[in-house]
């Protein structure tokens, strides 16, 4: 197979998810790189099949049938099942790539000395590598030793990342943390004959002793410190080690993955890592502040790229492991509460009825809304899942404690401002929604409204969705050909829905801001009103937001106008005059009237 970008014309990529394996064909056409065909099949990593390649082959078969391109050999022989193409011929492929989150994805436990320093850096390294963090141990987490030992034993992670201390600092506490791990002697999730992979990325002076201690029960990899200095974070080496262990200890022991790995010259990536890579690459290329949410059946991943006070683009990922639209739908109910879900409904539904419907979705997670009422209920749940997962994300996407401060250690510990979240909604340029409830919403504007409400967007923001959940595929493709992946990302993956204009204000002004596009006034945002402004799709021009009161902020500061070059989305502009934080009337009838008015103003089906 080819791995040189110049030799690539047809690339087949799969994402092996927990329930579905999705295969996409990327082709170099006369117009450039495009996503051309898609096939999918149930993932077969679980019993009774217990071989991931069976599901992958079924998905390839569908792509083959739809495209008319011969992809699979008629007889399986050799190291892979593919017909290889030479140049741009109508048969075969040049390369096969894959991502995977089957079997629950990569599950890690991390540990560090201080919750808001090394332990937080360890979390960021693991999350950035595409892992679900099962628990974070820290010397200051308030737990007793025996509680920590019990917790480690109970979790059975795939990999442990141990950090702590700055290089050259005190070693004892880091070694104590290693002793706790030794005491627990955790077993890996897969294969009880394997030794648990442990990555040590803490104080380099303690590395030898930690290695000697833990080598009795684990396979230890020592990498450079994730926090070599208080104000510096180096996540790359730890992230690379996680990926290495993911391939050698997790993937290769999952059913059928040995074969799948042999089909591709490029390592299989964890799905969230691939999504993170393509989001990060897009932010680098465009300079935009981006928020991306992938709301799945079991988990919600949130990715962000925002500039820190020094102007550097900082990437963060969090995963809310039990916020999702099917397997975890009842957990959204538990965490958000029934009232918070019901507040988004514009029709009568008793709490009992709402609970029953969500519980029944929990036990029959693959069912889909069949009535408008059920659809609206799921969209209400989505808003709450987005709200909760963003809140979680904000707590981790923070500046480093002590960064860039030439002061004493006491000052560093008292720096509250560095704990502020990097996520600033007024500075957010682009939101990308992914996952069935957003990507496959029957009306695109309803997906926009879910993101607008769930994230409580403010200022000027472009809203887009991932058309067919293509970001994992593009993330792994970008590891070989970033330009081609970006081209497909912009052309086929990202569907721009609209731009939202949301002034935030003090007092009770009626008219909030005037909006101009291409030099023409297109409307005025009125307080408490939501409406859509029709703009021809995909038109480039300058948008100007002119606050009409000194207390109104559209993203450039109170009373300050904002100008920006944009390309309009499919649905034009969405004006939202509801102030932030969003107000929900206490009385149910009033709330329902308000929700109905919002839906009708946007031309959404409200059943009336």
């Amino acid at each position: 197979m080819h791995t040189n970008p110049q030799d690539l014309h047809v690339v087949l990529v799969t994402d092996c998810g927990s329930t579905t394996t999705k295969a996409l064909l990327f082709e170099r056409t006369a117009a450039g790189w495009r996503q051309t065909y898609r096939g999918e099949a149930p993932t077969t990593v679980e019993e009774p099949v217990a071989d991931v390649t069976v599901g992958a082959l079924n998905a390839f078969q569908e792509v083959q049938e739809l495209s008319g391109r011969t992809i699979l050999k008629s007889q399986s022989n050799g190291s892979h099942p593919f017909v290889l193409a030479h140049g741009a011929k109508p048969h075969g492929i040049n390369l096969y790539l894959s991502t995977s989150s089957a079997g629950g994805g990569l599950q890690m436990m991390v540990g560090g000395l201080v919750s808001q320093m090394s332990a937080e850096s360890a979390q960021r390294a693991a999350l950035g590598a595409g892992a679900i963090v099962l628990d974070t141990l820290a010397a200051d987490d308030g737990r007793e030793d025996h509680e920590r030992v019990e917790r480690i034993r109970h979790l059975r992670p795939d990999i442990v990342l141990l950090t702590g201390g700055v290089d050259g600092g005190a070693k004892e506490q880091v070694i104590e943390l290693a002793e706790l791990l030794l005491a627990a002697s955790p077993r890996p999730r897969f294969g009880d004959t394997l030794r648990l992979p442990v990555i040590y990325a803490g104080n380099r002076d303690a590395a030898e002793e930690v290695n000697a201690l833990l080598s009795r029960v684990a396979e230890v990899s020592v990498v450079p410190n994730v926090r070599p200095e208080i104000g510096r974070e180096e996540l790359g080496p730890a992230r690379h080690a996680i990926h290495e262990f993911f391939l050698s200890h997790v993937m290769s022991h999952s059913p059928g993955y040995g074969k799948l790995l042999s089909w591709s010259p490029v390592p299989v990536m964890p799905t969230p890592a691939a999504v993170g890579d393509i989001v990060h690459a897009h932010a680098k290329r465009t300079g935009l502040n981006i928020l991306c949410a992938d709301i799945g059946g079991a988990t919600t991943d949130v990715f962000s790229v925002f500039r820190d006070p020094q102007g550097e683009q900082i990437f963060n990922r969090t995963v809310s492991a039990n916020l999702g639209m099917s397997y975890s739908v009842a957990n959204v109910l538990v965490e958000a509460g029934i009232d918070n879900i019901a507040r988004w409904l514009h029709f009568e539904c008793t709490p009992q009825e709402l609970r029953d419907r969500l519980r029944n979705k929990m036990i029959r997670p693959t069912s889909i809304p069949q009535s408008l009422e059920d659809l609206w209920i799921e969209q209400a749940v989505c808003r709450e899942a987005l709200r909760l997962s963003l809140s979680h994300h904000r707590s981790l996407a923070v500046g480093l404690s002590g960064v860039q401060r030439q002061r004493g250690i006491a000052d560093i510990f008292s720096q509250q401002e560095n704990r502020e979240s990097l996520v600033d909604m007024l500075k957010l340029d682009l939101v990308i929604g992914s996952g069935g409830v957003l990507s496959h919403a029957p009306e695109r504007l309803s997906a926009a409204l879910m993101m607008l409400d769930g994230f409580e967007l403010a200022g000027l923001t472009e809203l887009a969705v991932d058309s067919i959940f293509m970001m994992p595929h593009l993330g792994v493709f970008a590891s070989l050909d970033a330009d081609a992946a970006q081209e497909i990302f912009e052309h086929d993956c990202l569907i721009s829905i609209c731009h939202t204009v949301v002034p935030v204000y003090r007092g009770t002004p009626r008219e909030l801001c005037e909006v101009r596009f291409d030099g023409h006034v297109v409307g005025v945002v009125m307080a408490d009103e939501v409406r859509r402004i029709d703009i021809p799709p995909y038109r480039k021009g300058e948008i100007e937001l002119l606050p009409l009161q000194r207390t109104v902020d559209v993203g450039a500061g109170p009373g300050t106008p904002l100008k920006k070059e944009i390309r309009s989305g499919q649905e034009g502009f969405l004006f939202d005059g509801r102030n932030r934080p969003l107000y929900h009337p206490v009385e149910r009838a009033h709330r329902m009237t308000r929700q109905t008015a919002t839906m009708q103003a946007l031309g959404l089906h409200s059943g009336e």
Partner: protein
Amino acid sequence: MAQAFTPGLQILSNTLVRRIRELPLTGEVDVKVGEMVSSDTIVLRAALPGDLVLVRGPEELGVDAEEFQQLLKVEEGQQIAEGALIAEFRAFFGLLHSVLRSPASGTIEFIAPRTGHIGIRRPPRPMAVKAYVSGKVVAVDKGRSVTVETPAALIQGIFGVGGERVGTLRMLRIEPDAEISPDDIPTDCSGCILVGGARPTIESLRKAAAQGAKGLVTASIDDQCLKSYLGYDLGIALTGDEDVPMTVVITEGFGRLPMSPRVLEVLRQLDGRAASMSGVTQVRAGAVRPELVVPREADGSSRASQEPLVLKEGSRVRLIRFPYFGLFADVLSLPSKPERIATGAVTRVLRARLADGKVITVPRANVELVG
């Protein structure tokens, strides 16, 4: 004829049930292939590694780690009894004297040179795995697992809480759609698996548990009742290890749903029989559903259900989404092309006839085969 794979719950009056009993780590098998076992026969044993107790010696004695190494009276690998001397500290001609004694019996696994901390591994703890169902041992994987097979009736539920239980099936004297009240729970139900009715009140669950019932198989449950029974609000359908006095399995879902006639028909034939049940539920890929297994006499008529769950014209299905939730229908056709449904989504559908003769179109994802 068009057909498609679809999820469904097995409701079988006569099948061959095989259950694999596994150890979490390598151990010993207590039975042989061909041996008959009862549900409470121990088939596997293993020794779980003992807990490791961490002793922070230097901190206890108030000395630094280096000095502590000189005070030690034990070494790595040594067996030690609870209360035995680990280290002794004397200063000022014996005026200051303190000792460190072992908080646990076990083996000294390590003495950390840097911190002086000592790890004492307690002795291994024995564990045993029972057969769960009465039947014949048909396979043994040395040191790992045992497979027990029995001719049986098998009823899969949609959701359950609580672990494996064994008892005598007892039908409640109640209509299939009647809500179970405390008055419906017999006072002499100790050791029984109660069956029937719907939507039990929390008082009836507590009464059944207090009377010693092993389990309850019923049609539906109210989520607030479940919350009261568990003592917390369940977020994920991953159950089986709840600390509840009685296992509960529901066959239809949450809300006010009667038990399906097919389930009732099979259960009625089993009144008074010994049964095994499990509330273990895992609603993900490779789903595990709760179950009731009722072994029967081996007469050679039982066959393992090998048929995949295939949806085809004529299949009997249960509808699992509003507005038809809980109703049954017969599949008339499976159109090959996706169609637009009421929500605006385009998806693969089927057409089916309800009991009242009405023909409806529903997404294929929203039906369950009634096996």
